């Protein structure tokens, strides 16, 4: 009879290493600006610029209430939500179809097409701004959700196709073929057989693109208008209300602005890794 005890794999215990401390220090350093924004949003207005800064204070929600009730703030949030979510959902739908086609039918020159698709992201955004501005003026798309949604959808598709193709390639064509033999349509195979197996790719593509579109400033500023400005532009135009920078206002909007994304990333962070590696570490999810 063997008396060997089976050790369960566990987190390594023992003295905290230098590297662990360094890791924590770096993480905190990166979190400091966010911490500053949140703490400023919660500080009473008159203590915001105190030197030395107050780390212990009685938190107040008055700044947040003020910021939300200030002129167009709520509208900016609604605008951001409309164009961000609509365009990213649309982009992922289109990218899903495109990546299925790239992965399964392998049209001639697939590699080159994939390269071409991503090349729209090679050029700095500033180079596109003027042509797009003129185009949107001619097409009367300026300051319309339709225009912004078209633009952001177009901008979100390439990266989504790249992420999703990686995932699709990981799903054996045997699944498609078995379905076909049993009489399934291509449509059925795409949505009932393949889609459930690339769900983490869809989430990863969604998270990456929503981060991008939610934060996008330049094109929203140039192609949008009062009817369609989102939070980044709204924050920029309201920053100097009353003639000087109102830091409590900036921090409050910033806090509210960061929340939806922080929640999305917190809940879906496990998909970010697989997304970044284009589905090659699927086992991690």
């Amino acid at each position: 009879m063997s008396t060997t005890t089976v050790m369960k794999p566990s987190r390594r215990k023992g003295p905290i290493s230098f590297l662990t401390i360094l890791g924590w220090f770096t993480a905190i350093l990166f979190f400091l600006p966010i911490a500053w924004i949140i703490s400023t949003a919660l500080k009473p207005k008159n203590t915001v610029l105190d030197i030395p800064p107050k780390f212990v204070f009685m938190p107040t929600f008055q700044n947040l209430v003020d910021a939300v009730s200030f002129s167009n703030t709520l509208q900016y949030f609604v605008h951001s939500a409309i164009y961000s979510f609509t365009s990213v959902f649309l982009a992922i739908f289109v990218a899903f179809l495109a990546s299925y086609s790239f992965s399964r039918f392998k049209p001639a020159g697939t590699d080159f097409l994939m390269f071409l698709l991503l090349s729209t992201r090679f050029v700095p955004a500033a180079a596109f701004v003027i042509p797009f501005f003129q185009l949107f003026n001619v097409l009367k798309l300026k300051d319309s959700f339709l225009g912004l949604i078209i633009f952001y959808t177009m901008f979100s598709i390439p990266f989504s196709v790249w992420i999703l193709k990686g995932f699709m390639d990981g799903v054996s064509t045997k699944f498609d073929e078995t379905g076909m033999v049993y009489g399934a349509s291509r449509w059925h195979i795409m949505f009932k057989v393949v889609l459930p197996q690339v769900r983490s790719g869809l989430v990863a593509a969604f998270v990456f693109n929503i981060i991008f579109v939610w934060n996008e400033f330049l094109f929203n500023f140039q192609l949008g208008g009062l009817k369609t400005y989102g939070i980044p532009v709204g924050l920029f135009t309201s920053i100097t209300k009353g003639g000087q920078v109102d830091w409590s206002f900036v921090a409050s909007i910033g806090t509210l602005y960061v929340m939806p994304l922080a929640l999305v990333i917190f809940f879906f962070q496990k998909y970010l890794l697989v997304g970044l590696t284009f589905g090659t570490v699927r086992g991690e999810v």
Partner: protein
Amino acid sequence: MTNSALEVKGLSKAYGEKSVLEDLSFSAALNDFSVICGKPGNGKSVLVRTIMGLEEIDAGQIFVRGVDVTNADPGSRDIGYIPQSFALYPHFSVRENIEYPLSLIKASAEVKAEAVERVSELLKITDLLNKKPVELSGGQKQRVAIARGLSKSTDVYVLDDPLVGLDFKLRERLIEDLRLTQEKLKVAFVYITSDPLEALQLAKTVLILAHGKIVQQGPLVDVYDTPLSLPAMTTLGFPEANVVSGSISGSTFKSAIFDAQVDITGNHTTAIAGIRPEGLLVGEHPGTISVGAKLTLMENLGSEFAAYVDVKGTQLVTVISRTDSESIKALESGNLTISIKPEAITLFDSVSEKKIGKGVSRV
């Protein structure tokens, strides 16, 4: 029109310059277990894919139940299909996987429940129905895949090397299950494999696939005993048949290691002799051709040994029973005589590899 469950006529398929299937024809009857056996790289997968409609063909026709399905969609061919790699849908439970072919034709809940019960009892997987494929072992997955292939009642089933990669014991069990299943359902099973043992264990009718063609089709015993070509002999049988080339002079086959009297048709100057391992005996026996040999390898097959011997630089293999202690002793002694039964020799043309004659018994 034809009465076969599945019939293929003059099928050809090439990829660019490379021809994979060439004018291939065969038919599989209802209530028969047909095994298509071919060595790896002989176009088995392509053949399955063309039968199922997953691959377009360059020439030829495919009939299912006498109906030409050459250009029909895979789904409309109504063939039960068990793919090589289980291809169980990971997001479905075992039950949903088995029901899947029925769900696609929008069968009622009762029909589905009845089918699941029928096939899960047949394959003894009733206790797995609520599990997900990821929770199953390899053998269980294969059973589920077979159950899914059988769930939709039809009369033609194609099984694409379904036991490949499974462990030995499991294969033995599933082979038994498959045979019984076919006997119970009285349908056409077309089973594709590269494993001669599977072919020998399963087939009622065996079809030898070599060089992109079905080179021989017939009842298992006939094909095994009377191979009409060299590939038919070497493909079916384990260990693989011995092959010795030589020349013909009159009615004598002469090779570097033995000479034999043969009965031959046609004019030939060269030939290839094929001898199954059981045509070689250890020690001297009356009425045989004896040659001196050296043992190179003994392979334990359980109830028997495969003994590989070297005869003047040519490697031959024979099988001996585990209880044949005399032969085992002789093998181990090193100084060895191997006897070739002349009637076990089959002669093939060196070019066409077709059968041209047989060895003649000395008695």
